[in-house]
């Protein structure tokens, strides 16, 4: 009796351990964020104020939105480089079409979101029908969308109304617009992760063959995931126009690799099937705060890319180490 209850106990603690291991990548990302905030907070006054939270969230929000779509595609086992083109395209359409009329702005916001979803869906369709590698298709898509953006607006410019820019800085209960968007993202994910669709997406990322044999239509899933990615990229572009007050035909390129990096740092697997948006959000904060850290440390700003690279590697090493451990335990 005694020995069997002991066994049970050890089984439970092992279960606990393996659960921790399963979340290791996310936990590592969280601890990194804590360390960065701690260093930052000890060197800079006023870090732990609502103002600062608003400011940093505003700085990270475009990346977070772009990375939300990227996370969904990564969970499905794909990758979307075309968000770079979509974000640029979104800003230039907004900057050239918005005008001053709120109704018109609402209409065009809707159109931009629809274009985002539509182009993403088209990408997904192409990937399934021709069975192409997402890396190459979305690479080409990036080039094409970026080109279209340049044709609409050859250089930075256009404009959005002041009140639209202001709406990016509104405050409600002390929290700024970006924080509310962040909360909305979190609520969205809490719901989304529990839906069938999310399970199907993860399953397809984990094993496309198994998902297919279980009746999943790969074409449909690709359309949905790449469509959502395009949708979130369009959303990111709308938010971005409140930050830059106009259109910028190349600006999206700056978000492609960081969006992947944010997700990976947060523990989303590049091979699909594993991870969640909370990790991505933490990853986006890390990437944004590194800049602040380099700034207050007063080292040459050349070190910023070096630090992001090292953090990216550390995060991935931690997760692959945890994965190996977990696998050993599981087998």
């Amino acid at each position, binding site marked *: 009796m005694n020995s069997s209850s002991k066994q049970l106990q050890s089984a439970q603690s092992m279960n606990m351990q393996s659960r921790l291991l*399963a979340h290791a990548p996310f936990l590592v990302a969280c601890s990194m964020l804590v360390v960065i905030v701690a260093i930052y907070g000890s060197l800079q006054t006023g870090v732990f104020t609502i103002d600062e939270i608003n400011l940093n969230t505003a700085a990270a929000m475009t990346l977070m939105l772009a990375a939300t779509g990227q996370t969904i595609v990564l969970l499905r086992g794909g990758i979307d480089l075309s968000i770079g083109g979509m974000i640029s395209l979104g800003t230039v359409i907004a900057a050239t079409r918005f005008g001053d009329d709120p109704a018109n702005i609402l209409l065009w916001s809707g159109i931009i979101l629809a274009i985002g979803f539509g182009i993403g869906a088209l990408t997904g369709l192409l990937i399934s029908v021709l069975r192409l590698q997402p890396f190459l298709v979305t690479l080409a898509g990036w080039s094409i969308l970026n080109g279209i953006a340049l044709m609409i607006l050859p250089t930075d410019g256009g404009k959005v109304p002041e009140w639209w820019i202001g709406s990016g800085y509104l405050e409600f209960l002390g929290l700024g617009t970006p924080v509310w968007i962040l909360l909305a993202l979190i609520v969205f994910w809490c*719901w989304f992760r*529990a*839906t*069938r669709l999310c*399970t*199907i997406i*993860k*399953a397809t*990322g*984990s*094993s496309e*063959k*198994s*998902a*297919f*044999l*279980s*009746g*999943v*239509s790969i074409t449909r899933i690709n359309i949905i995931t790449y469509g959502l990615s395009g949708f979130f990229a369009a959303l990111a572009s709308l938010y971005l126009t409140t930050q830059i007050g106009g259109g910028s035909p190349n600006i999206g390129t700056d978000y492609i690799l960081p969006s992947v990096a944010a997700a990976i740092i947060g523990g989303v697997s590049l091979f699909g*099937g*594993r991870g969640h948006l909370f990790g991505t959000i933490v990853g986006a904060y890390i990437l944004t705060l590194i800049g602040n850290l380099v700034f207050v440390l007063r080292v040459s700003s050349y070190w910023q890319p070096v630090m992001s690279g090292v953090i990216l590697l550390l995060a991935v090493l931690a997760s692959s180490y945890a994965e190996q451990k*977990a*696998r050993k*335990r*599981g*087998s």
Partner: protein
Amino acid sequence: MDIVQVKGLTKRFGGIVALDGADFSARLGEVHALLGENGAGKSTFIQILSGALNHDGGDILVDGQDYRPVNPDEALGRGIAAVFQELSLVPDLSVEQNIWFRREPRTWLRTVDVSQMRQQTLELFERYHFPSIATTREVRNLTLAERQIVEVAKGLAKNPRILILDEATSALPASEATWLLSLARQLADEGRLVIFISHRMGEVRAIADRVSVFRNGSTVATHDAAAVSDDQIVTEMIGRQLARLYPERMDTATDRVALQVRDFSSPPMLNGVNFDLREGEVLGVGGLQGHGQREMFQSLFGADKALGSVTLWGKPVCFDTPRQALSGSEGIALVPEDRRGQGLLLTKSVRENLSLPVIRRFSHLGLLNQRKEAELVRETMKSLSIKADTPEQIAGTLSGGNQQKVIFGKMLMTQARVLLLYDPTRGVDVGTKGEIFQLMRQLASEGYAILFYSSDLPELVNVADRVMVLRSGRVARMLEGDDITEEEILRAAVFDSEAA
């Protein structure tokens, strides 16, 4: 009236004809066994039936109506569910998520109702007496046998009228296989149709009401199981008389110890294994699944790490990688468990697969001597009678048995004379099985030393010179001579007795 009626079904893959006018007919309430050589077209047939593949020609009637499903969903709509030979589980989802995949109960928010799902899982497990598996474990952490069981649960969860089991028992240890057989019987008795594919005649005998035999993509015959002899079925399957499945036992073992293993351990699975394998001997390895057999084979081959001392032909060795195990004039070769995942480059040619382990031997001054390679490949293909159009045929398009032979061929091309065979006949048809056993005996007589694990007890009993039964990562008993019987092996595997 028969619920499924198939007439003249054809299916091609590029130039390969998988089905060539197959006929089939089955009724509710029966277990209908499907037999045939590897590559006869059984899996292709049931994939078409279950909507995973489209057929090129012929008619299928279900309930007397035309039936041409474009995806597995549509098949399910007509009450047909399949447990595929290649499992369809998602590694990153839990057991219960897999079982109810895409059919999860939902809350008013349209999110998955987790507690309801758990409830349903337990009910399902209870109703069909499933072996216990924690329902929240991720499938990637399960053993092959456990996955097979979950796959069955997944099929049953759809509550189909027609359940297809494609070699579902092949990965199961004896007790679980027995459970599955009785489950199939129970389903048929509930008034469903079970289409059952297996290469183990004993299983077919145990439950099948009727038997259909496939050969080369078409149907040879359908019999009442009670009215037909094993011999006749086998003859129909392979198109000729099979002299005997098991080769004559010859004592070819010498006194020379080929492989000496002491205190071999890698906790928690391996806890100090000791044995000697002699030149010319076939040493069987038995025991319940998950008692260290896999770890032992993997570690001896250098694919996993373990402690202890290993002596090969009198020389102490310590392999960290398979490469070390295979290289040198005296090594160890493994025919691995997972044919597709560990054994073969499915998209490469038979030639490239065969010569891969020894490709460096054909290299002179950095350049390959391709003529020499081609020659050796041809010889190996011939001596193992591998059925392929040319050495350039892509390995993935061979039938399972021939794929297995290619893996054997790979290992024989190395100079290793200690062979580790991990369940080499899994999913292999009787004809080929016979050939493999023959080959094993022949190799033994040539001085090879063979360690042979099988999940099929009769194979151990009939082929091995001695049988070592593992329990909890230790050698529970070493059976010799007349002691080698199915009962003794099972007893040693399950009950405590004196250690060897």
